[in-house]
């Protein structure tokens, strides 16, 4: 078997292992091990040698250390009461409208997304605050959980974003520029969800109750309480963009700042700190194990020549770049129903990115890379809320045991629809994504 054949055979083997419930990082690691072993003609020495240092160097990555820092930042932000303050502010402005409490939940998710790099953390945190309120004002179960699951994806769509960091590292793009490019699409996502909510309550009038408006003075008072969120977002994302510090340094400042806010709010005791650290530890360990597996597997794929072959083949077919892009995005949407977003990015970007880079979209290669990154980010995040396997759906449903999963599935399709409309718009008008980028 040639190395190229070996590379192609590894795909079905990998998928089989994953569908047989192998931990995803383990499945990639095993395929990587096997690939290196067979590609070296059955000689285990190079593989064993690689293992001497590659685990350590993967884990000791300066750029990847941004991930545990952003995760801890999200934990501290919850402890410091920022999630509550955000929801209260949004709710005081929007709560009296039809579907207003749900809109407020989306708004608060967007705000929290600005200081949290993870979708699940955003979904879980905002659910703690917003679910009881939604139910109190008579919002139906499925509608409430679907709103929060969709809102949670704003945690990654609005910078900072763990997935964008991984994409930036895989494709050697500038993290700061990717964050900047994600900004308008992130805002559009929030607006899209709010429009979706207003459509939903018109079509399902019994799904939401109403409540009287809050006086203006109180609204602004509630808004004023969200200032720490604003300060941290401006310092972290602004500072990264303006180059006051590297993205990793920015994440450290963000974590230190939210930690300080949690300390000052008086809610940071030892046992809560310990739980924050343990929560960060579990997610970080899981992410890095996948990153490790992907590193080995992608190294083997490069060795096999599959990415080069694929990109040459697609270019050779003379398909229109837009058709290729559409096929790739649809592929992500379908696979997103089954897989988690990080593994999808790590598995597919090394293969798809060379294909897209080789095509002419009438833009500079850097702009194509950034634009494609944002599109991929959005479609893999849709995977978090598409049935049957949608991590955000699971998380929220586990926090609201009274609502059957099927109710959540039904309501969330409206939000998936909004996501698809947004992807189409962003594909058709790359300028929306690239608008904030310099030159």
């Amino acid at each position, binding site marked *: 078997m040639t190395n190229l054949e070996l590379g192609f055979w590894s795909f079905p083997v990998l998928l089989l292992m994953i569908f047989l419930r192998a931990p995803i990082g383990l499945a990639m690691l095993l395929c990587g091990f096997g690939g290196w072993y067979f590609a070296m003609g059955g000689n285990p020495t190079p593989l064993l040698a690689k293992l001497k240092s590659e685990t350590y160097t993967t*884990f*000791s990555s300066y750029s990847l250390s941004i991930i545990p820092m952003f995760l801890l930042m999200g934990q501290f932000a919850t402890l410091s009461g920022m999630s509550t303050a955000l929801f209260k502010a949004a709710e005081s402005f929007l709560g009296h409208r039809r579907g207003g409490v749900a809109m407020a939940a989306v708004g608060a998710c967007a705000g929290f997304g600005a200081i949290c790099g*993870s979708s699940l953390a955003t979904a879980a945190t905002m659910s703690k605050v917003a679910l009881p309120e939604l139910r109190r004002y008579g919002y139906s179960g499925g509608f409430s959980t679907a709103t929060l699951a969709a809102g949670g994806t704003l945690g990654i769509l609005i910078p900072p974003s763990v997935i964008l960091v991984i994409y930036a590292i895989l494709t050697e793009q500038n993290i700061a520029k990717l964050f900047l490019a994600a900004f308008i699409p992130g805002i559009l996502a929030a607006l899209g969800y709010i429009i979706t909510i207003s459509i939903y309550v018109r079509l399902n009038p019994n799904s939401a109750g109403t409540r009287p408006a809050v006086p203006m003075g109180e609204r602004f008072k509630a808004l004023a309480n969200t200032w720490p969120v604003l300060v941290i977002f401006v310092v972290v994302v602004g500072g990264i963009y303006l180059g006051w510090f590297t993205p990793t340094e920015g994440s450290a400042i963000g974590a230190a700042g939210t*930690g300080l806010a949690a300390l000052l709010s008086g809610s940071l005791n030892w046992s809560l700190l310990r739980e924050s650290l*343990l929560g960060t*530890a579990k997610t970080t360990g*899981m992410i890095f194990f996948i990153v490790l597996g992907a590193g080995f597997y992608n190294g083997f794929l490069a060795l096999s020549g599959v990415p080069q072959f694929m990109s040459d083949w697609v270019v050779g077919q003379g398909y229109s770049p837009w058709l290729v892009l559409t096929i790739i995005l649809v592929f992500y949407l379908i696979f997103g129903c089954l897989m988690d977003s990080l593994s999808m990015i790590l598995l597919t970007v090394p293969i798809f990115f060379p294909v897209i880079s080789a095509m002419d979209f009438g833009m500079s290669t850097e702009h194509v890379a950034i634009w494609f990154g944002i599109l991929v980010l959005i479609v893999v995040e849709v995977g978090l809320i598409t049935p049957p396997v949608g991590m955000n759906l699971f998380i929220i449903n586990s926090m609201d045991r009274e609502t059957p999963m099927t109710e959540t599935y039904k309501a969330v399709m409206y939000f998936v629809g909004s996501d698809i409309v947004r992807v189409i718009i962003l594909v058709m008008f790359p300028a929306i994504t690239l608008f904030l980028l310099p030159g």
Partner: protein
Amino acid sequence: MHRLIQFLARFTAVIGGLVLVVLILMTTLSIIGRTANKVLHNEFFQTQLNGLSQALLDLGIGEINGNYELLEAGIAFAIFSFLPICQFYGAHASVDIFTSVLSRRANRWIAAFWELILTAVIILIVWRLFEGMQRYIGNGETTLFLQFPVWWAYAASFAAGIISCIVAAYCAVVRVIEAATDANILPSEQGAH
């Protein structure tokens, strides 16, 4: 035994988490120092407050030397420290949609099977990490700025790796027992991010 392993996994994760906190503080202080250093060097301070700014600069106000290297060594230790708790709580991401059609018992055996493989892989990784450390002990390689021997960082990660092996081995045995007796002993969180 169960309590002991649970304690070990959580304790290791908390130590790693505290190292993460220290790295966050170090990085933040380094940026503050760098900014202060820049301010003290600007025209106003250099001409009007020369004595003061020079005194502060002489105190060594500035970027923490080699913070980049300390961050890399520290974060590797932290990540290795986070593996045991992932193992213990079954927090590794997996896709269970296709196996959900099978019986609960079959799923338990599947889980036990992968846990065994995972344990073998973790032991392999940590064994190779040890070999990597041995190599660096022998060859005198140091870091660029602080010039501390590279093997120190490997040794710290290896220590955490040993705990991973212990916890992984325990979890593998317990998952097999769970499958054999159809009982719940370990948590299964199946995390994602």
